[in-house]
């Protein structure tokens, strides 16, 4: 019970590491079209998914991110 209450309080926060040319542009388009979505994501822009060092994901988790999204 108490735990479920706690969960209500808690909002997940996750990081999205995305490619500048595809996903980042897509995310901008979502904005321009005013498509609403949850606030839980924090975007990090990289030139290309090829640049994403797998350890970024591990470090993000170690730094307390509740999840990591990688999108190209």
């Amino acid at each position, binding site marked *: 019970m108490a735990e479920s209450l706690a969960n209500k309080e808690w*909002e997940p*926060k996750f*990081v999205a*590491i995305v490619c*500048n*040319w*595809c996903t*980042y*542009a897509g*995310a*901008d*388009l*979502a*904005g*321009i*079209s*005013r*498509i*609403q*979505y949850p*606030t839980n994501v*924090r*975007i*990090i*822009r*990289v*030139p*290309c998914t*090829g*640049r*994403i*060092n*797998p350890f*970024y994901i591990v*470090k*993000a988790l170690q*730094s*307390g*991110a509740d999840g990591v999204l990688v999108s190209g």
Partner: protein
Amino acid sequence: MVKDNEKVGAVMVVGAGIAGIQASLDLANSGMKVYLVENGISIGGVMAQLDKTFPTNDCSACILSPKLVEVGRHPNVTIKTRRTVDSVEGEPGKFKVKLTSAPRYVNLDKCTGCGDCANVCPITVKAAFNGNLSERKAIYRHFPQAIPSGFAIDKLGTSPCKANCPTHISVQGYVALIAEGKFKEALKLIKQDNPFPIVCGRVCNHPCETACMRGKVDEPIDIMHLKRFVADLDLNSDTRYLPEKKESKGKKVAIIGAGPSGLTCAYYLAVEGYDVEVFEALPVAGGWMAVGIPEYRLPKNVLNAEIKVIQDLGVKIHLNTRIGKDISFDKLKSDYSAVFIGCGTMKSSKLNIPGEDMQGVIHGVDYLMQINLGKKVSLGDRVAVIGGGNVAMDAVRTAVRTGSKNVFILYRRTRAEMPASPEEIEEAIEEGIEMKFLVAPKRVVSKDGKVTGIECTRMELGEPDKSGRRRPIEIKGSEFIVECDAIVPAIGQEADLSFITKESGVSINKWNNVDYDKVTYATNISGVFSGGDVVTGPQTVVKAVFSGKEAAKSIDRYLQGVDMAAGRDKDWTKDLADKADVSGLPKVPREKYPNMKPEERRTSFQEVGIGFSEAQVIAEAHRCLACGICSECYQCVDACVAKAIDHEMKVEEETIEVGAVIASPGFEIFDASKRGEYGYGIYKNVVTALQFERILSASGPFFGHVQRISDGKEPRKVAFIQCVGSRDVSCGNSWCSSVCCMYATKEAIIGKEHAKGLEPTIFYMDIRAHGKDFDRFVNRAKDEYGIRYIRSMPSSIKELQQTNNLLIKYVNQDGSFTEEEFDMVVLSVGLMPPKEAKKLSASLGIELEGHGFCKTDLENPVQTSRPGVFVCGAFGGPKDIPETVMEASAAAACAEGLLASKRGTMITPVDNPEEKDLRGQGVRTGVFVCHCGINIGGVVNVPEVRDFAATLPSVVYTADNLFTCSQDTAVKMAEVIKEKDLTRVVVASCSPRTHEGLFQENCEKAGLNRYLFEMANIRDQNSWVHMHEPELATQKAKDLLRMAVAKAQYLKPLKPGQLSVNHQALIIGGGLAGITAALSLADQGFASTIVEKEDRLGGNYNHLYKTLEGLDAQAHLKGLLEKVYKNPLITVVTGANIEKIEGFIGNYKTTVKSKEGEKVFEHGVVLVATGAYENKPKEYLYGQNAKVKSQRELETMIYEKDSKLAAVKNIVMIQCVGSRDKERPYCSRYCCSEAIKNALELKASDPSREITILYRDIRTFAFKEDYYKKAREANIKFISYEENRKPEVIAAGDKVNIKVHDPILNEAVSLPADAVVLSVGVVPNPENAAIGQMLKIPTNQDGFFLEAHVKLRPVDFATDGVFMCGMSHSPKFSDETVTQANAAVSRACLVLSLDFIEAEGKTAYVNKERCSACGLCEINCPYSAIRVNSAEGCAEVNAVLCKGCGVCTASCRMNAVDLNGFNNEEVLAQIFNLN
């Protein structure tokens, strides 16, 4: 001929589709100033509408957007939208171009593209960009990534209602707002032009309705009563609308007369901040509105409520104060800064008949005034009212209400001539009033001083008088007496100007009206103004209001000392939006306006009109046709925080000087409704291919979900019908549109990917997959996607009632008919010349060819009929994107060739201050948080974020700006950077993809390295997508900012690597492509070396005698070769081979081996023009039987006049020999045309010849189709065969026989022939592989070179500095080769014209100590920009080749490779600062 030093280093590009954009970029990047002129509101053309592009199925938007952004931000490109070219004068090298600009009504320098305006715009229209499948607002942009990103307003002109309204209220505007239920806004809009909506909502003569275009469809909109509704709503609301008052100007104005004109004048002056006092002789305010119009039409309480608003504005009204009696006019003049005379016409005109002064005669004006002032006036039972105007109506209807039994009108004309407003007459008759027409009073009959009757005569109507009404003429001897107890003459009224003294000098005209200026309403005496009835004679309330309003403007200007008349004399009859064709619009009946029942009315003064309900007004308002499109409701103006909108913009003209012009207006889509049998526009589920393209698009009307228009269901069976408006003489389009077969195939494939269950069928005549890798694409469609191709053109389409499915009837090859049902039909509409082609050709001074496309030169397809004016793209004939892009570059090359001497003379130089030295400097970060108007500020708590920023490490300065991108903020930012000595700048605003460059420039201007800048995207990816969660959005904004600041700490100042450039070119291959390129380079002043393997130049072109279009190829080649050998800039090495190529872009070293031995050339770029070879077939007895020849051999015989040819009577030609088969699954493109060319030639020289062409698909695309038609007309036979049923050639004595299956006869036929001619097709140069090795450039499966991008970089390679042209790219025609050669030159010049190549700053770098030279980076790098140096034992980056993708960095276990701008430290800093 213009001398070099007089030329202009600028080019105008007309039309901003992909062709115009590509040309502009090539020109601008090679040092030319470019004016990119577009008549639309944004650039991108049709390509922006496409979903995917064949044959790679790349996302069109993805590949186009970067180019849009580049051209949009390019310092040397000026984009001019909504422009049309009027004329081009001058000579090549120096033209004067006259342009006209249509107003955009949005200031692009201010517009941030936030879209708040569109949200409030009440006008919705079909979105053409989405093929009319969705809607947009009157203020709009085509698509979110549009460049320019600003919005634009569509106006067709002033809507007739507004123009015809005497006081010019934005009628369409408030009607539109009412339709949206925005009643408050509507009232505010009305009050901008008329402070008396309550009155004019009741008693206006509403000329607006007379003008209303709805009237032409059914009945005009009931505008007046719509106005009453919003006015009453305001009247009854607890907080009434009061306009904002400007601060007091401390000046007093006196107004004589509290009528509509006086009070209006008072209202607007008060708003302007003047102290206004009104002097009224009567005990009530309102003038005629109060004492003339009876209660039952305009209740006193509502009138007073309206006047109260004016008093609330601070206007003082002195009642019972008659000027000239209580205060002298001259005193008024001296005590007040200005005086307005609006005393109206309150004196009745006399009948001037005997006995008019009898008791019982009371004039209408006085009668109504007494009643309205509450006097009891009883007229007895029988009352005669004389006159036909509104006053007469008011009088007669009032008499009824005061209890007179028998009341009637006497009027000397007929009802038709009555000046009273129709509804009043109507209502009067309803109330049982008798009207006697064609009678005129002669004298009053009386008994002992009391009226007993009136003597009248009968009249008849004569000729019309100057009022346009027929003049009444007395009928002699027709006198008779009408008995009555009272007579009310109501034939007119006049002003009482006794108070205006001679001394005052105010001039009064012969009609006893004050003389005034028609525009300013000023009298002859300065400071004295006049308006309303007193200057015009009795008129309407609304006219009086207008005069009051205009006078107020004048008085304000007068007191401000500004010219009163300036820019005010507007002709409202000009550019009316009344041209629209309203025929065929559905009828919608006008809402019935509710009135009290007549019987109830007679006995009461209660208001007759009850008023519309809310539902009624909204319904009625929706009847509006929005004639002007923009309704000028000015909601956008209020909504725009950036103050970017300006409805006053006007059409303007400008003249621009350029050295050359490039025409790239693109094409028009064929109007499918012209092919009625397909039911486009009638059957819901029949769409055009472009509409289907939008349906497929993720950003389209249905977000990429494939659905039918009729019911939104996902279709299963979809039919594509080819050649709609192409290859179709019936609609005058004989040409082939070249692209439809491919885009239909693409749409079928993509459609299937979107909707798995889709079953596409393509109906076609010939599949024209004549481009590079096109056949492979079609084969995939057939084999992998199971798309059905049927060689037949549907004869009819019927829509089925319930399902809206479509029944297609088509004929099979054997002549039988099939009927098949489909869920949806897509029409592959053709490409037409642009709408404006004729006008454009006239203004550019160029000719059009027979079909209405641009006429081009046979030797150079981008040359128009006028020197110095070039063409590219579909304007020169239907073609697809890569050819368009090639032509664009080619046109650019030709323009550059013409203006080479002026390269770099007109470009905007970037001069940035000395970069500040950061050594020993700590990190000092400045943070700028943007409100973006309300786009961010409306959701995110910006001040809170700003304060939060101040708490972050290294932050020494914070600020928040309304618009960080605005010019003034840019200046401020630069100052701050200097003052606070910032070493890092972080902006939290929109997307770096659109704004990073701009802010980086600000930094550079302040001497800060551009790479010390970082952005946090708190708009596009925060406030815009979390509009309803302000707290969370604010929290997120803080996080994003914290991350950005953290990253910024680690940013390093970067110096993009520089590389010197050798200005010479190496051309591999001396065919048509090679020599054309060499000459084109020479035109631009660049030296080149042609390396040719054979002993002579010319390659395949040596064997071509004549082109299908009739160019004498031999003469052409001869001319070219002369130029080549004459030109000092061109070195030719024949019989030579490339031994070795070392180096990279800008710095190549190539070893060439020839008879003269080995020689090393240094050069900056390489043009690969290795060409291709004619295929040597093994099949069909070629080489074994003398009767079997290749087309080339035949052509030689024809033009070398071979005598053997005379005997050749029966000729059979076989197409696709060695093309489109298992071994070579590609089309050789030119064979069909070649065969038809030779066939026509043979027929021409001997019509008795029997010629049969055995083909699979005839691919005479574009205008070549005409020759195909000609061939059929010349009775050349065409028999199609399938790949699996190839013809057989059998030797038979001195003849050969050809066996082939005839699909129409459906049986094998045998054709005897004196000659069998094989169209043998093309094979790639076998040396391509070796050369590819040396240059590290790839070839495709077929062995032709593979370009960097098949659509947008058709002559480039992924490896910089290497370009290709001619048949090394793919099989093509000679003219296409010329174009591609010029294109390659244009691209090459982007390098050659530079002294240094700037590398991208954000490139990879290697930390040598960490590197173990494992080579994983080298394997992964797509640009071969990093490789292991085994001597050094570590990897090395070539910064110039590096594109900064970072693939190498992630593949490096040692973290030895890292990426500037996104290095591990920087990215991890962001990760570590999530919380």
